[in-house]
């Protein structure tokens, strides 16, 4: 099992959800985050004082999936979240030691 984390532009969330649903991914956790990579900030003025806007609002999607779904999932996310503009985000994968379903106590792949 692997944890896939994707940081994407917020308005792309619906498309990414649909794309993951289409390949059979059972669930996900979504959070609102801020960040930057190559998308640099810009300067604004508020009442005569300058301020930097460089942490941009993003959405983070996390889902634990089977090993044999990883490539499919990465492709689904990357295609759905892509706009071609700087700031589209990143996807990464880390291994998961164990998963437990709280209601029933199922462990490992049975919990997915």
């Amino acid at each position, binding site marked *: 099992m692997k944890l896939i984390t994707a940081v994407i532009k917020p308005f792309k969330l619906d498309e990414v959800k649909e794309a993951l649903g289409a390949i059979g991914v059972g669930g996900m956790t979504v959070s609102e985050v801020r960040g930057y990579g190559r998308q640099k900030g810009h300067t*604004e*003025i*508020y*009442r*005569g*004082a*300058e*301020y930097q806007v460089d942490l941009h609002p993003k959405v983070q999607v996390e889902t634990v999936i089977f090993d044999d779904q990883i490539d499919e999932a990465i492709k689904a996310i990357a295609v759905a979240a892509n706009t071609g503009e700087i700031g589209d985000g990143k996807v990464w994968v880390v291994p998961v030691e164990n998963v437990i379903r709280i209601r029933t106590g199922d462990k490992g792949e049975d919990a997915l």
Partner: protein
Amino acid sequence: MEQQIVMDTMWTLLAAFLVFLMQAGFAMVEAGMTRQKNAANIVMKNLMDFGIASMAYWAIGFALMFGAGNALFGTTGWFLGGGESAFESLSWATPPLTAKWLFQVVFAGTAATIVSGAMAERTKFPAYLIYSALISGIVYPISGHWIWGGGWLAERGFLDFAGSTVVHMVGGLAALVGAVFLGPRIGKYSKTGKPRAIPGHSMPLAILGVFILWFGWFGFNAGSTMSATLSIADIAVTTNLAAAAGALIAMGVSWARGGKPDVGMAGNGALAGLVGITAGCAFVENWAALVIGALCGVVVVFAVIAIDRAHVDDPVGAIAVHGVCGALGTVAVGVFASPRLIESAGVGTEGLVYGGGLAQLGTQALGVGAVALWVLAASTVVFAAIKVTVGLRVTAEEEIEGLDIGEHGMWGYPETFLGIDTLGTPDAVAQSRQERRVGSQVLTPSAGES
């Protein structure tokens, strides 16, 4: 005759209620222009400064301001005693004494509440309560006596119809002294002295506040006739023209300077126009009201920035809007006072542009200067005294965590700071299940009974 008095009273009271609502306007502007972690504190300050002003002005303020006395302050009418005869300076107005008092107390409350904006986000709450009592009980009434209470400025023909100086400059300069004594908010200025932006948390609240103030100002200016005459329509129009001009021009200036039209500055511009026209709303023609509003719209933007650069931290622009534009609007009467309006008022002389020379202008400047000196000196005494006794500013730790939790033990926006509702503890859920079980047993008897 009788009917006229009733109409005068109804109008005066309606206007008083409009001006009262300006307290909500100030509360919303100040809440919107400051951060969420201080929102409960700022509206609490606004709620209380009106409560305190009501008490202080009833007890001693109204007497000091309108009671018979000398050229500097009144000495009769404490606690509204002494009847109508104790308040000779208001005998020109026909409504009963209580109506006159109510109309005047909401003006005192306006002056007091101007200051909370400049002192927002770092002032100890008890310190603010003490200051409120002193400004509405003593500082505001004394300069008010000079101008509206038959004092020495009134005798010289000083003109301030609805209070650009009496109310707004007084509040604005007290705000300046308070902000200076406090010092800037943590993080407001960088190590090199450059101002940092601390954006307000809600422009919708701020502009709602501006609209409520603009609405209330129709009572503030047109109500100052304290009589139901046709002139209230003319006054409402000069008021509106100045507000609109101020808003548009301030928007334009901020657009030109910053590349985009700043919402807060535009709001300040509308208020600056309103403050500016308050002195002359009954004395100047429509075109002059536009000029005064526009002038204040320009000045307020530059004043906000200049005051910021002087390292006086004013989160809402109260000093620029009320202090600077209050003075400007008062002096402007000496330039634009129209002969026909001066004549029907029976006070003062026509302005510079009508060939009246420097006479009225000089009187206006004298009054502005004298009141400014009084307020600066008196406020300095008040804030210095508070600083060395109760203490004026909160600790750095409290300022960073927020005054809501520090001063009031609660949040204006609990869900932002405490997180999502986590009250579904095991006990609470089990308790709820138990209660439902018991409840259904009472309603539906079991098979063994009935």
